[in-house]
């Protein structure tokens, strides 16, 4: 019995990933233009959607316009924080600027840059993109792997409203 417990514990320790009910990963990252830095503490008391993305990831690019419109709908109490893991921040900037041009307005959310990929490593991201819905207390309430469609966003909005 002891052996089985040891084996299970070791296996679990080797595949650590953040799931529902876990605390959100603490971070301190700079924005894409390296002018401001943000930490998880800056969002205390707010519902946060942390989105891990990259400009080389097709699904990430597909869902990005949805985040523009989603953040536009929530003026307070909810923040989208995108974290790019691109090799260079300029590729992320270029892509976001192309979306801004297409939609006709500046990005309404916070875009951070994580060159060391510390966030996906800490979250144990199982896919790209990955999004984490975090409540006011800093607890992960939902983990979404893969890109969010328009319908998924509608479902997400219900969850956000409940947490607000």
């Amino acid at each position: 019995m002891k052996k089985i417990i040891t084996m299970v514990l070791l296996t679990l320790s080797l595949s650590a990933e953040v799931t529902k009910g876990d605390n959100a990963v603490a971070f301190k990252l700079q924005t894409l233009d390296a002018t401001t830095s943000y930490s998880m503490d800056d969002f205390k008391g707010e519902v946060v959607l942390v989105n891990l993305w990259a400009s080389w990831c097709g699904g990430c690019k597909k869902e990005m316009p949805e985040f523009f419109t989603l953040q536009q709908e929530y003026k307070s109490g909810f923040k989208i924080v995108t974290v790019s893991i691109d090799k260079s921040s300029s590729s992320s900037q270029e892509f976001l600027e192309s979306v801004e041009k297409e939609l006709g307005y500046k990005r309404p959310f916070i875009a951070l840059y994580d060159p060391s990929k510390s966030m996906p490593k800490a979250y144990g991201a199982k896919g790209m993109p990955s999004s984490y819905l975090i409540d006011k207390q800093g607890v992960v309430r939902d983990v979404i792997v893969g890109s969010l469609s328009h319908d998924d966003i509608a479902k997400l909005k219900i969850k956000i409203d409940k947490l607000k």
Partner: protein
Amino acid sequence: MQYIFLVSLVLLTGCSDALVRVMPYEKEYFAQDKMSLSPLAERAEQESHIFLIREASAGGDSSFQGGCGCR
């Protein structure tokens, strides 16, 4: 002895996983067009057409078809 064997086995499995597995957030180079088996869509279509003629097996290039074992 058995205990040491079991622990070593689990740890070694963990090591091999870490060495072989490319995590989703590390697939930047795999996502490049040049890493695709058929980087040119038009060419891939043409190659597929030639393959089907050569093999006389229309529909056999999909995993959803067949099951006859005729290829």
